[in-house]
């Protein structure tokens, strides 16, 4: 029991450290004392402006996006009973990307800043509806439908790049696809947060069901689990939370795959117990990666968040695959 409490305290301390780092680091470094001063005595100083207009929304968005990726990754791995499942599997991220790309392609985002996230959320919901209507038969059908929808949405993005009206539009689309938390403000946060929170509710409601699925689908059903409802909750929750997150930040890979694996041994491998720790570690990983993009010295632009998570995530993924191969007979 002491070990469990210590682990929880450690995780919370880690998260708090990441939040403080995320608030403090950037082009202008804010001392911890200045940070605390600005929080408790808000006065319109430069530090306070940087915090309230840039760092705080960026940090909150990072928390929400990271937690969404970790939570939905854990739910999907539990639902599909596959340690390689991740939120991108169901076509939701690709749908959000296509929606956002359409907004950039037709110049809507230039006319109206929130067009990109709004169309992105729309794209995620359309993709989820497609996956659900094609793949309502069973879990395997749902994965196949997700792969198909993912491919279709990806083709749409490629089509937009193919027919980009000018090089700068193509550049803008490509840069957006790489994923970043840079220059995200309160408007985008307020737009995405309700969808993200609604998605979390759907995902957390599957807790008992993914536990029961440890026994396989037949036994889970015999224990009163309504699998159609579980699949719907997992898909809707992923579409709402990860869809809205991708719509605001662009695609960010590997966090949804990594976070559940990091917490699995500490949760005794029980899928339901992994949901909240996985959300917590998703947030920690994303904040760390975002802080790293600000610290890594570059000539011009920041390293894009999605690029960094993929660079760090790929070796982890390979390690995971080889470890699984060694474990299985």
């Amino acid at each position, binding site marked *: 029991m002491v070990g469990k409490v210590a682990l929880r305290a450690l995780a919370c301390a880690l998260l708090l450290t990441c939040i403080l780092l995320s608030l403090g680091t950037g082009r202008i470094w804010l001392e911890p004392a200045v940070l605390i001063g600005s929080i408790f005595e808000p006065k319109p100083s430069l530090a306070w402006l940087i915090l309230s207009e840039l760092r705080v929304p960026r940090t909150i968005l990072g928390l929400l996006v990271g937690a969404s990726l970790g939570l939905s990754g854990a739910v999907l791995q539990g639902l599909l009973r596959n340690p390689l499942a991740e939120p991108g599997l169901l076509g939701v991220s690709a749908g959000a990307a296509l929606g956002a790309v359409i907004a950039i392609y037709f110049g809507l985002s230039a006319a109206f800043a929130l067009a990109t996230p709004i169309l992105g959320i729309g794209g995620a919901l359309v993709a989820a509806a497609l996956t659900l209507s094609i793949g309502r038969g069973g879990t395997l059908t749902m994965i196949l439908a997700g792969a198909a929808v993912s491919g279709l949405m990806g083709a749409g993005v490629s089509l937009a790049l193919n027919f980009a009206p000018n090089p700068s539009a193509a550049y803008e689309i490509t840069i957006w696809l790489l994923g970043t938390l840079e220059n995200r403000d309160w408007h985008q946060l307020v737009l995405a947060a309700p969808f993200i929170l609604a998605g979390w509710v759907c995902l957390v409601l599957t807790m*008992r069901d993914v536990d029961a699925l440890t026994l396989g689908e037949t*036994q889970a059903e015999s*224990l009163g689990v309504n699998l159609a409802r579980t699949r719907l909750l997992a898909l809707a929750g992923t579409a709402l939370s990860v869809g809205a997150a991708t719509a605001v930040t662009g695609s960010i890979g590997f966090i949804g795959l990594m976070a559940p694996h990091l917490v699995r041994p500490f949760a*005794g491998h029980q899928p339901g117990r992994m949901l909240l720790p996985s959300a917590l570690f998703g947030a920690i990983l994303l904040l760390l990666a975002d802080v790293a993009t600000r610290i890594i010295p570059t000539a011009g632009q920041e390293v894009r968040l999605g690029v960094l998570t993929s660079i760090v995530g790929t070796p982890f993924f390979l390690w995971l695959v080889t470890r699984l191969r060694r474990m299985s007979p």
Partner: protein
Amino acid sequence: MAGHQAAQDVTVSRIEANGVTVLRGGRAIVDDVTIELHSRQFVGLIGPNGAGKSTLMSVLAGLLAPERGSVMIDGQSLATLDRRALAQIRAFLPQNPRAEWPISVERLVALGLTPQLPVFGGLPETMRASVAAALEMVDMAEHRHQPATTLSGGELGRAMLARALVGDPAMLLADEPLTGLDPRHALDSVDRLRKLADAGKLVIASMHELTLAARYTTHIAVLREGCLVAFGPTAQTLTSALLHQVFDVDACVTGAGTRTAIVDFVPDPTLQP
């Protein structure tokens, strides 16, 4: 004395199937089956491969809705019974159940309490006691912290039985629970199932081990090509004539319904050199 007490406490529960028919590709794989089963019965469901045993088990467990006919549990139609309510009345063990993640045996058994649990929160203290009791009953208490994926076949079978029984259901349906067990574990398992029936539960198990069926079951139900060809007390029902009719082999049955019963198959004399 204790057994007598238990017998009085147990309410009689029953499953009634009425004209149950399941179609696959236009073919009836369960064909117009009507049967009524009561608590205190240990029913062995036998029949050749492909006779529809597993399908009938799924229908009786309420996991598969038949195309025609109906199933009632304690007088209530399965079509209207709530999933969670049903899950508290009957437990179902599919063929070769396995654990998908390396969770501890204790937690695996606790999953059997899913229909009793609130939506959130841990396991209440009273339920911990039932988990411990279920583990004790199948002699798995010393394995309770072991990952379920590292258990041997016999141990996993026992852990799964504890999982099924931890919520104290009135009925247990087990699909081929003896398959893959060595003689000692097969004997232990079938004896355990019989004791559950003697303690007042309704136990239905499909099986291919005819000698064990002859020794331990109270009743035998026989399926052939989806049809129920015989149902009755083991001593009267399990006969050489029936086995010849159902399995197309000459069989020798001695002492059906007693603990020394033997079912032996006799080679066709025309095939002898």
